[in-house]
């Protein structure tokens, strides 16, 4: 078993009276793609925001690479890359300038930032659009840039918050292939989605989250096996069985 790279312990977060995350605990091993699967509003994004040091948990803690998000957030931020659910780009800048800028923000010098930016743009199939203004890009291309920025600085742990929402099949496939390449390269990834096929295809283990709580956590194969033959049932069936409703409700 690989070492535990991320350990989340009893995380709680409320907004006013609403409990967005209610006692979430899990671990992610080095080199693992860990899926957080749940419907909209289940608490996936709030969990990621806490793990990425943007939100402070009301209770509980997380260690990443041995560093606490509460007590050593700077060290945590040096290990992570975040691809937020919403596009986080400067539309007036070119793709290359966006990537170089965020590269500088994660501590790369100008030359390194440019080299990495060009490499990641090539990986995303956007090297020919490097100097194009992001504002002119399609939604799928923006999503790819959004992901590419998260890779700047070669983070040890990547948070991907629904990176394929609302995009064309070509861009989605490109993102899948990129993530599979990262997985094969040994990168540790936390992946949130409400698409079953993504979780099934990409993740080593999946935690199903609903109402701010993790209600099941295992490999996709084992989760499906609990309710029937794994080749006959889907993760959607698992969710339906566990909660009594569909993931898309």
């Amino acid at each position: 078993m690989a070492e535990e790279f991320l350990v989340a312990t009893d995380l709680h977060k409320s907004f006013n009276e609403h409990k967005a995350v209610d006692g979430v605990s899990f671990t992610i091993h080095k080199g693992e793609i860990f899926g957080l699967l749940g419907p909209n509003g289940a608490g996936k994004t709030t969990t990621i925001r806490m793990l990425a040091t943007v939100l402070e948990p009301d209770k509980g803690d997380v260690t990443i690479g041995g560093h606490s998000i509460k007590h050593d957030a700077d060290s945590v931020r040096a290990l992570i890359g975040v691809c937020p659910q919403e596009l986080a780009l400067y539309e007036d800048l070119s793709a290359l300038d966006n990537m170089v800028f965020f590269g500088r923000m994660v501590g790369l010098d100008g030359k390194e930032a440019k080299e990495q930016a060009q490499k990641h743009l090539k990986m995303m199939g956007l090297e020919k659009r490097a100097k194009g203004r992001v504002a002119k890009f399609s939604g799928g291309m923006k999503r790819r840039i959004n992901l590419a920025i998260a890779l700047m600085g070669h983070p040890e742990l990547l948070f991907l918050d629904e990176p394929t929402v609302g995009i064309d099949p070509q861009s989605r496939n490109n993102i899948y292939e990129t993530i599979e390449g990262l997985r094969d390269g040994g990168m540790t990834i936390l992946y949130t989605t409400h698409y079953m096929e993504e979780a099934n295809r990409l993740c080593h283990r999946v935690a199903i989250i609903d109402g701010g709580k993790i209600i099941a956590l295992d490999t996709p194969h084992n989760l499906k096996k609990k309710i029937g033959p794994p080749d006959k049932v889907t993760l959607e069936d698992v969710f339906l069985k566990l909660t009594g409703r569909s993931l898309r409700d």
Partner: protein
Amino acid sequence: MQDKADLAFSLLLPIVIFALMYFAFGGASLFHGTAHVVNEDEGGAYSTVLLDQLEAIEEVDVELLTAEDADQKLANSDLLMVIYIPEDFSQNLAAGEPAQLLFKQRGNGGDEGQIVASLVRGVAEQINLQFQVYNEVNLALAEYDVPQENINITVEQYLDQERQSPTVAVHEETIGSSPDPVNLFLPGVVTMFVLFAITISARAIVEERRKGTLERLLTTRLSVGELFFGKFLSNISRGFVQTLILLALAYIVFQIFTPLTFIECLVIALIFAAAASALGMVIAAVARSEDSATWIAVFFTMVMVMLGGTFFEIGKGSVLYTISQFSINTYANDAFKTLIAEGGSLGDLGLELGVLAGVAVVGLILSRILFKVMPGGK
């Protein structure tokens, strides 16, 4: 400053404002008035001469009115002064009798009326002089049989020569363009410019929030303090560069600075831009949308401009004066006026510079604290 068009506009704006100032204050003469005249001696030789000479004055336009019109306008205060040329004006002069012009005016005739009246008096004196010369020459040559036409030509030549090379000449030397209005208005224009930094700073954080880049930046190695300080510096730079352009143009064209006062003005502009930017950051820390940031900033900007002496002086001792001491614009305006209009130096501006620098430091710290305690802050 990610948008090149935005950058270009930022740099162009002070040039446009300066151009407006130049056209407003840069001409050789500031006065241009109208002489409202009722000519009851229509067709008279000497009234025609008078009107021609009035029309030859560059600063004065002549508007002829009927007596009824003029009386009505004077009665309604539509005009403050009218010049009447009486019916017997030319006849009297031709007969060697004294003639009179009549100035009808409300009160003192207003500033314009007084200046026009003084110009008309000048023309009348010239005509008097002309008559005196003619009379004296005619008198001296009365016993000789010199044709009147020759006398007229010789006198006219003498008068022309006298006009071109007067015994007592006034020489005008222009040193740059007329500077006084610039001295008066430049401090206000500069401070208003810098105050726009409040609005731009106020939007800095919410714009990042709307784009989603704020959250992304907060997951990098950039600390919130560094983020705030970076935005603060960027806004100071914009305000300062714009002010630099404006002051440099004023220096070159209006020549109202010495090299030292120019540098001193830049120091004030820098500290004032820091104070304005810090206030903007305070608004940025509490605003939740670009609209709210803009409107809060516009409110504070307008109040500070009003209270800061940009548009009107506030008398010492009044309640408004006490309130105006809470406007950073007051201190910046005072500082610029001391340097530009009163010939002071930075050494005279301890209070003003201290207040502005204090606002910059306290504002920046306060903005950081507010960002931490506000919902969704960090």
